[in-house]
């Protein structure tokens, strides 16, 4: 059951992040002031894919609630990081971001760390 919840978190997170990153780049730079947040909410309402991305976050959020009810936080949070390398790869191939050697090495170190933390 706990790995099923982790899988739900990972898949919903990956899809949500890709949609959000893609849409937010097109929406332009945002600020974190009160007015900035209001504009952000307006942007979410206007962009269907961005809204879908937020819905994915909601799914991952409920799965996380269920996971921390039974598992320690020091497992739940790192385990959800298994989404990491998959996302970096998708950032390169779907969003066409440039992944240099240093960025790739960093992401791999993070992955190794996640494996140790989760094991």
């Amino acid at each position: 059951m706990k790995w099923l919840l982790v899988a739900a978190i990972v898949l919903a997170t990956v899809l949500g992040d890709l949609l959000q990153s893609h849409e937010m780049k097109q929406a332009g730079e945002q600020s974190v002031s009160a007015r900035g947040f209001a504009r952000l909410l307006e942007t979410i309402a206007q962009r269907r894919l961005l809204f879908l991305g937020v819905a994915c976050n909601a799914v991952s959020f409920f799965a996380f609630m269920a996971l921390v009810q039974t598992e320690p936080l020091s497992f739940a949070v790192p385990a959800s990081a298994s989404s990491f390398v998959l996302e970096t790869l998708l950032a390169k191939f779907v969003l066409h971001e440039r992944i240099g050697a240093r960025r790739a090495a960093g992401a791999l170190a993070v992955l190794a760390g996640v494996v140790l933390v989760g094991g």
Partner: protein
Amino acid sequence: MNTFTERSGAVLKTYSVLLLFLALKAAGNSAMAWGMKQVPERMSMNPALYLRAMLHPFVAVGVVALILALLTRMALFSLADLSFVLPVTAVGYVIAVFLGKVFLHETVTNQRWLGALLIFAGAVLVGSTSRNTTSAARTEALK
């Protein structure tokens, strides 16, 4: 000189938003984990259970903090690449292990600490690379 000031301003903004995100995430996670363990009913596919759990004060604080963290992270996405945001926010995993140990009294093995350190090292490595490679400023930023 002007472009230098603008660029360091943008970097400062990126890192301030990053810090705000990490603080909200850490507070939200801890409150959520603490609160959920006090909720008597086990969560299932029934949405009503989740809504009722949100009435617990610690869970409610967790939900609010995590929603604010989510919005802050979206603002961060408008400032930097996904492949920058993801590894750098991974510092949050180390913070979560630390808070789990200190505030929630969880057992943290040496292997788990080692993993947390590796995550941190990876995040620092990625943080040393350029901030945004897909915007118009990329030729400048790649220097």
